[in-house]
């Protein structure tokens, strides 16, 4: 059985827990606590340890989906879960006070996952806040990680189809970069 660990990171309220719920085919494991920080995200609960979901593919592959807590106080969980990950779905909610800064911070923290596999950026809650537009994110990603091709999508974390598109694009990109690297190695 090959395991593929995909992390879901991003600021509080971006939709990591919701996204894993949308994608997982098992009942997800959640660690929600009552949210006492309503100023940052006005919602009832917040993740304090991790979310966990799975997609099993045949009897050979298992995609493990881990959601991280968004609040930096829990960054020890980020470190723990980062180690096994081969891919990152970075969610950023467009209605945050400064979502591009959130993007900066999380790419700074998790950017190296691009080298371990791949990253995809999902901008959520664009129905709540249409601005900034998606190309602002793409531009910023290009600035922060020049020469890397990182897909940027708008997505509603509640929408399974859209989350699948994000996940599949991530995997397609991971496989394609691996294939190109292999070809280049062979050519050299």
């Amino acid at each position, binding site marked *: 059985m090959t395991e593929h660990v995909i992390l879901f990171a991003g600021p509080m309220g971006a939709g990591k827990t919701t996204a894993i719920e949308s994608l997982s085919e098992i009942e997800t494991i959640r*660690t929600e606590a*009552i*949210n*006492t*920080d309503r100023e940052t995200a006005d919602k009832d*609960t917040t993740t*304090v340890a991790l979310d966990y979901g799975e997609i099993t593919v045949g009897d050979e592959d298992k995609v493990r989906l881990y959601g991280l807590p968004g609040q930096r*106080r829990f960054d*020890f969980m980020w470190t723990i879960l980062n180690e096994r990950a081969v891919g990152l779905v970075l969610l950023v909610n467009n209605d945050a006070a400064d979502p591009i800064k959130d993007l900066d911070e999380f790419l700074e923290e998790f950017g190296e996952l691009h080298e371990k596999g791949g990253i995809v950026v999902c901008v959520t809650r664009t129905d709540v806040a249409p601005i900034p537009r998606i190309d602002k994110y793409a531009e910023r990603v290009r600035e922060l990680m020049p020469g890397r091709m990182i897909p940027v999508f708008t997505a509603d974390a509640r929408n399974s189809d859209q989350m699948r598109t994000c996940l599949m694009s991530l995997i397609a990109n991971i496989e394609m970069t691996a294939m190109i690297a292999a070809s280049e190695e062979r050519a050299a």
Partner: protein
Amino acid sequence: MNDLANLPHVQFSGQQASSPQPLSPHKDPHVIACANEVLSGFADLCRSLHHATILTDDGFEVASLADDVRQNGRVASMASSMQALGDAVAKDLRIGATEYIIIAATTGYVIQMRVPDNSMVLAAHFDAAETVGKALSVARLVATNMRTLISSEAA
């Protein structure tokens, strides 16, 4: 989606029941005062107590016995994660609500448990001189005291 129903405790201290957005425990001077009082009593009860923190379920420090602010914050976050993981395991195994969590290490152990009827957790670090049994019963006493103090002073 909404897991509130599955959470063991959903009530904050009673006195804010009328306000729509209750003050969170770690910002509520009354709750903080109660926590400080209870924790200082804890130190008197048990000499092997190294460190203790009362925290909100979502990992904010309400009060601590030690002065290292950074460390207290760290303990609060980790204890919150631990508690939630414990709850997740108990839920998955269908063994009821988590009563306490113990981490036993070579030179000491950590006990954590919820403050009854509150979305707060007590986390206490003892050195190895103490027996687990005694540490546990003292911790339980402190957690119950905290509950009593909050509700009595509020009334």
